[in-house]
């Protein structure tokens, strides 16, 4: 089958969505399909730019390419699902969250002006129109599906996506907590740094790039974390697998996250995940004292959780192994089978 995977591209940014879409293309090809990644640059500001950029997807003709039909398109996130196609399937990573649950929060985008309020409503209307055109709607987590239903009344089937293929393994339970992900405020890496400040015996490695990096490095300096925290930036696949293999546990506690591959990657490496009660999607797989630790979103609570794992390595190992069983149940073969039933 000829399949186009659709992903809006934020130039120079790379995160879970990019890894997911690229992996999906690779896996589709591995199963004998002719698959390709279709991207259009996306900039969501200022003002109405979020809508005109969405319209670019609406104007894209993906019914065929080079004289041959494209039989299926798989849209992933706003605004790629604005595309018109007779067989459009959406595997939703997230909507434009600023128009929904992030509105009127520090992470929001729209002001209280009449124009901005109407702009937000127009984004919502766009979602209702374009998502309801889909042959089938999948959401990567219950959290994403619930948000979708609340905001548009549309129901999606929950289908978590398997993590990227890495050389996952568990070598040891070292002395550092690993954080993986794009460095922006929503990922809440500052909570981990504050926890480090409260627990002098802890160390952390913070992988990833993003607009919040400078602020986080400055925070680490001000808290005197010195050699206890490292910011290696975006690391290669081998190094990432090695960090997972050697860490004590993985920290992953964005605020109300959509899904997040990180817990699954941690589990495949046999490592427990430390998260917070308000993390959203990750809570669907990170269960307190079963596959990790779930604490209050406060530095002291997080510090206590990490310290407990450090002092109870055997329990940490058991939690990681329990998670591993869950993560191993997620396979690309099964996911693609469901996707193509559409």
């Amino acid at each position, binding site marked *: 089958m000829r399949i186009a995977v659709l992903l809006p591209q934020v130039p120079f940014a790379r995160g879970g969505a990019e890894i997911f879409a690229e992996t999906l293309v690779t896996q589709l090809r591995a199963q004998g399909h002719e698959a390709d990644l279709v991207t259009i640059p996306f900039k969501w500001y200022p003002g109405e730019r979020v809508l*005109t950029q969405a*319209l670019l997807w*609406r*104007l894209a003709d993906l019914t065929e390419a080079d004289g041959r039909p494209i039989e299926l398109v798989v849209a992933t996130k706003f605004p790629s699902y604005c595309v018109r196609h007779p067989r459009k399937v959406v595997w939703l990573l997230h909507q434009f969250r600023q128009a929904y649950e992030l509105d009127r929060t520090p992470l929001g985008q729209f002001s209280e002006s*009449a124009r901005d*309020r109407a702009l937000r*409503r*127009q984004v919502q209307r766009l979602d209702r*129109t*374009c998502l309801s055109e889909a042959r089938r709607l999948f959401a990567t987590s219950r959290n994403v599906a619930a948000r979708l239903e609340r905001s548009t009344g549309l129901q999606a089937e929950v289908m978590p996506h398997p993590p990227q293929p890495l050389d996952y393994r568990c070598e040891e339970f070292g002395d550092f907590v690993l954080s993986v992900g794009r460095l922006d405020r929503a990922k809440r890496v500052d909570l981990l740094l504050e926890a480090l400040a409260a627990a002098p015996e802890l160390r952390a490695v913070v992988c990833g790039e993003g607009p919040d990096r400078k602020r986080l490095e400055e925070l680490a300096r001000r808290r005197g974390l010195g050699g206890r925290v490292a910011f290696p930036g975006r690391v290669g696949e081998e190094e990432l697998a090695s960090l997972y293999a050697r860490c004590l546990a993985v920290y992953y506690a964005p605020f109300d996250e959509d899904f997040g591959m990180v817990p699954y990657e941690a589990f495949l490496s046999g490592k427990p995940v430390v998260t917070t009660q308000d993390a959203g999607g990750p809570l669907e797989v990170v269960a307190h004292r079963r596959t990790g630790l779930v604490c209050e979103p406060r530095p002291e609570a997080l510090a206590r959780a990490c310290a407990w794992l450090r002092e109870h390595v055997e329990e940490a190992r058991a939690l990681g192994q329990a998670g591993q069983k869950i993560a191993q149940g997620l396979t690309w073969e099964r996911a693609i089978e469901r996707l193509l039933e559409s």
Partner: protein
Amino acid sequence: MRVAYYSPLPPSPSGIAAYSALLLPALRRHVDVVVARPGRLRRAPKADISLYHVGNDPEAHGWIVASLRRRPGVVVLHELAIHHLVAGITLARGDAAGYLDAMERCHGLVGRLLAYAVLDNRIPPLWETRPHDFPLAGEVLRYATGVVVHSRYAEEGARQAGYDGPIWHVPHPAWPDLEEEPASVDGSPLIGCFGHLNEAKRLPQLYAAFKRVRARWPKARLLVVGRASPGAADPPPPPGVAREGYVEEGRLWSLMAACDVVVSLRAPTMGETSGTVMRALSLGKPLVVSDVGWFSELPDEVAVKVPVDEHEVEALALTLDQLAADGRRREAMAAAARRLAETEHDLERVAQLYAAALEEAAGGRLVREAVASELAQAAAEIGLRPHDPETRELGERAREVGLGG
């Protein structure tokens, strides 16, 4: 974003006043609301958009229509046929020319001639005899930048009246978290009828049906609560009927809570929703309604709909008899009523729908213009002209997602 809110409010006995008292606190959680007050010399509140609640009572709504004419905004069309209102703010205030003009604007030369006939007492007042044929909704719709309706019936009526602006369907909110202590009223079954009692409430038909019910259920009691509208017939109640006039809010709730079934007949309909029906749904009471207008749109699980025809009394009596005999059915209807109140008519959901409508109405045009301008500029820069096929496609795609002009 700030909304200027025009509505009668308690202690006005109007149903729309009770509606606004329920809605306002919830709406304030989503938008900044400033409540406008009546008074010719009072300045209109500064706001991004005005919201006008329009019903049929000229006393309660005359000043609201006057404000709407001065400053167009979003109209909540609580009733589709507003002939009463228009007559009340024109003829009743000595403005015969205003009435003639309104009739001509909405119904052409025939309308004007009929209005003359009314003025000359050659035919009975149309607002009493044929308001649904001459609804005069156009008199407020022509000032509306958007319209909120509670039913498909009202939406279709507004379109038939020639309104081509945006219409938002926002259900009437239910009252949340009710724990009313039922009043002590005898009756097995106890049947309730509540609200302003005018001709449309079909009291004679209800009394006739109740007589038949009582023949089989001697302990049955019909509780009729509400003030009779001036000029409306208030027929003498048959045995078994308990009659109360206007009652305070608390007493109204406790009386309704005591009922086994609530009857809300209506014909002719002005295209209105019924506050009584919403109260009954909120309390989880089985309903019997007329099969007209908004009432027809109620789900069958919550209301038995009685056609308004020559068999009305017979059908109504049969329905009440069946409900009296079937406790399980009453329980199922009660549960369905509560579910409907908690979902479709959930107050928070209704407030969100209002906020969405108001936000779209206040800034939607600016957004569409900005998008169109950016698209037009991009098209022009690559040499596309307004009537080129590519430009037309651009417009079509934008319209598909609500961004077209």
